[in-house]
């Protein structure tokens, strides 16, 4: 009989491990399995309707649209992310961090706001047509959705490729150069195989982000009759006969979950064990771009960011400043701060505070759970199956997660912050996956050395493991925080006036066609997030500098 664990540990530790596993499985069961079970039960209660619904042209078409658009967006995002990673990685160490932060900024703008900003920038009547008399007619529909999904997820690919480039050792590349290979040839011989091997795992992550997104297909897809599964569910629930639409929404959610699991399984089969978000390694490869190549590369990154970020954000700000939507936004006589002061006077400030606190609480809880879970199950290979299951809620649309939370927890937590908090935990639990996977790659030699020198368990973890895990735990915290802050539909289904969140304000303003409020909220939140990103960058630089200093002193 195969044992559940690979490397049995000392008796006392094993007992604690099993207690830990039991507690974590209980949390997992309550937050993930129970609501998913409620979803399946509710779907089964609809009888054969669910199966019939899966075979309808509308369902198949929405699934096709989701898969094709997400695949194309993933390919584009990977190309953009890799290109930017290579350019930024080729810069001097000093300017690298700043360029990396700048290239990451599109991730800090909510996808919904991003799509809205593009409309303000590039449609007929938008800023580009006012200033330069040109516009994009394709923004509403397939291409608009694909391009915006790619723009929004490219920083994720950049983050992963950049971290991966930092882990590649330089010996092989240097050897190739010494033996006369050109820079390009040496790159394709010594570096490209490493990059190629991690493309499936990064691609899988980006694909899952794309297929589960709601904001971009809502703003750009729906008006162009391009329905993805997330917006099809939203449309089904929008009106018409309730029993039929509910069945359709449930069956579409199940089909999306099945697709996501299939994608993860394929990714795990073709992917490598290399993790995607860590940035550790010794003697890293350095691309040493020539000055000319650096200039061209930086020029391309600047041009790209001006187009995808700066111009749309400027348009968004002008829309937020204009006293009435439709007036010439570039004329200062039409400007007012009333849209911003109205936000402060109203309940928006409180809603932002609620969202920030909820997102921070969810991020902190998942970071702690991730660290504990990665530690507890690292030796239990079979439990890695759990990792495939935890991604499911991430791919199920927020509206359906909201519904499962109502089905499961409403009787106890109706109208409380806690039910929204539980929804965030369930939806973003999957983001722990890289952390759990990475723990298995942390070299065991350091742990053994610490133990040989008499360090206790806590001290061993702190000195031999945590330095490897800290940056990835930080990334996990940030990803959950951003995702929770930007979700649109879950809290809209779960809130009451006392627990209003940013999502409720934004979605209501959008649904009511209140453009200037949407723009003002979008501008405010994007500015806050970008300022946060810059502060994190400054903070981490200071922290690194002070830790280097203390190393020297020590």
């Amino acid at each position: 009989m195969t044992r559940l664990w690979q490397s049995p540990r000392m008796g006392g530790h094993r007992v604690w491990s099993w207690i830990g596993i039991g507690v974590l499985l209980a949390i997992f069961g309550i937050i993930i399995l129970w609501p998913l079970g409620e979803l399946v039960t509710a779907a089964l209660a609809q009888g054969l309707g669910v199966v019939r619904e899966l075979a309808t042209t509308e369902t198949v078409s929405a699934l096709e649209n989701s898969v094709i658009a997400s695949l194309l967006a993933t390919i584009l995002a990977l190309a953009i992310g890799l290109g930017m990673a290579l350019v930024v990685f080729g810069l001097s160490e000093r300017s690298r961090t700043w360029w990396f932060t700048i290239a990451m900024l599109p991730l800090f703008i909510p996808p919904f706001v991003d799509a809205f900003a593009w409309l303000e920038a590039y449609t007929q009547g938008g800023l580009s047509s006012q200033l330069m008399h040109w516009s994009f007619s394709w923004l509403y529909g397939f291409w608009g959705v694909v391009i915006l999904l790619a723009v929004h997820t490219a920083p994720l690919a950049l983050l992963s490729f950049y971290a991966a480039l930092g882990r590649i050792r330089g010996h092989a590349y240097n050897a190739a150069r010494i033996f006369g290979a050109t820079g390009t040839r040496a790159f394709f011989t010594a570096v490209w195989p490493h990059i190629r091997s991690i493309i499936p795992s990064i691609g899988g992550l980006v694909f899952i982000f794309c297929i589960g997104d709601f904001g971009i297909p809502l703003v750009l897809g729906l008006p162009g009759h391009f329905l993805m599964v997330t917006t099809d569910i939203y449309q089904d629930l929008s009106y018409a006969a309730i029993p039929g639409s509910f069945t359709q929404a449930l069956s579409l959610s199940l089909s999306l979950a099945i697709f996501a699991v299939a994608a993860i399984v394929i990714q795990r089969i073709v992917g490598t064990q290399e993790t995607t978000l860590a940035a550790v390694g010794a003697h890293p490869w350095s691309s040493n771009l020539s000055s000319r190549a650096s200039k061209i590369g930086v020029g391309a990154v600047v041009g790209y960011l001006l187009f995808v970020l700066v111009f749309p954000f400027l348009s968004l700000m002008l829309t937020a400043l204009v006293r009435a939507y439709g007036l010439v936004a570039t004329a200062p006589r039409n400007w007012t701060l009333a849209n911003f002061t109205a936000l402060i006077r109203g309940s928006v400030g409180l809603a932002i505070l609620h969202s920030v606190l909820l997102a921070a609480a969810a991020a902190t809880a998942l970071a702690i759970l991730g660290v504990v879970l990665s530690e507890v199950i690292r030796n239990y290979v079979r439990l890695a199956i759990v990792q495939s299951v935890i991604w499911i809620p991430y791919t199920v649309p927020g509206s359906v997660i909201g519904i499962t939370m109502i089905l499961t927890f409403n009787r106890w937590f109706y109208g409380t912050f806690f039910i929204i908090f539980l929804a965030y935990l369930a939806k973003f639990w999957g983001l722990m996956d890289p952390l759990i996977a990475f723990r298995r790659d942390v070299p065991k030699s350091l742990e053994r050395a610490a133990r040989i020198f008499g360090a206790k368990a806590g001290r061993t973890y702190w000195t031999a493991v945590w330095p490897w895990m800290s940056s990835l735990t930080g990334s996990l915290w940030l990803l959950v925080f951003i995702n929770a802050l930007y979700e649109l539909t879950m809290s809209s289904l779960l809130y009451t006036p006392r627990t209003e969140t940013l999502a409720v304000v934004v979605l209501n303003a959008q649904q009511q066609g209140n453009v200037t409020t949407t723009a003002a909220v979008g501008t405010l939140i994007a500015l806050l997030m970008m300022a946060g990103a810059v502060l994190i960058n400054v903070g981490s630089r200071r922290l690194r500098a002070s830790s280097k200093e203390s190393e020297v002193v020590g």
Partner: protein
Amino acid sequence: MQRHRKSAALLGAAGLLMVVCGASAPSAAKAQSAFPKQSLTIYAALTTANGATLTQDFERYDPNANVTMVTGGTGTILSRVAAEQAAGGVHANVIMLADPTSMASLSQEKLLASYVPKGTKNLAKNLKGPGWEAPYLFNNVIIYHKGMSLPIPTSWKDLTKPIYKNEIELGNPSYSGTTLGMVGYLSQTLGWKYFHQLESNGAVSVASTNTVGVDVAAGTKDIGISLDVVARNFESAGSPVGIVWPKDGAVVAPAPVGIVAKNNNATARIFLNWLFSKAGQNAWQRMGYQRAIGQSLLVPAHTKVDNPNWTKIMAQETTILNNFQKIFVQ
């Protein structure tokens, strides 16, 4: 120092948890200070601001009422109702939607009480149905960008003229219930050939009537088929949007309200009665909605308005949606 930091972190974490998990609990002082109030939970497809206004007005009318107003789009409200029903019961006492397309199925599910509010006996028969009555109305009208160089159209038929080629936008009945009413009614009176002509004239269907309003205000399109309230909101804010009341008749979409059968209490009935009273009807008018009872100041005198038969439209829903899809989407 480190211990202090740890204590501060723990206190911070505890504070965070208290704020996150405990903020919605009613304070003891509040619970003790007041007489017990009748709580009334309303799920309403209204703007947040209008929901707050309605709450204030009603609480002033009935000081014994403690209103919890949950606002959102019709879709969000219906999703909530469906999920709560499946979870054992809807929390709301009253449901208010922006169009009557879902009321029939809510009634069939026996979710709505059969209470008839005072003052609604003389309400037009198309403005009520089983378990619901409409206290205010929307009108499907033509809207236009005030800076456009084209002549202002005066009727639905004008929109098929070549002069408006590629300048017209309308909603999608698969997404918008009020648009379903307009498409259903005009396809009965003008025939499906009217929509074929619109499509041939380059008319584009988008999503909601609000999307149409936004695009017309921005000048993306010069002409739109949308709701009077959408155009009125833009117009009152100073946006360059104007309303045309088509001379061949604006198409009415009633906004229904009903009491949840399981939560049918006295305060819910007082609220419904108030909605149809003079004070309630004035409240709708102040918020920019057309009152269902009495002369509305928001609709010009002698305007032709048509009240579609919603029961008939809902019976033909699938045909209407399929025909529309064939013309504008496929």
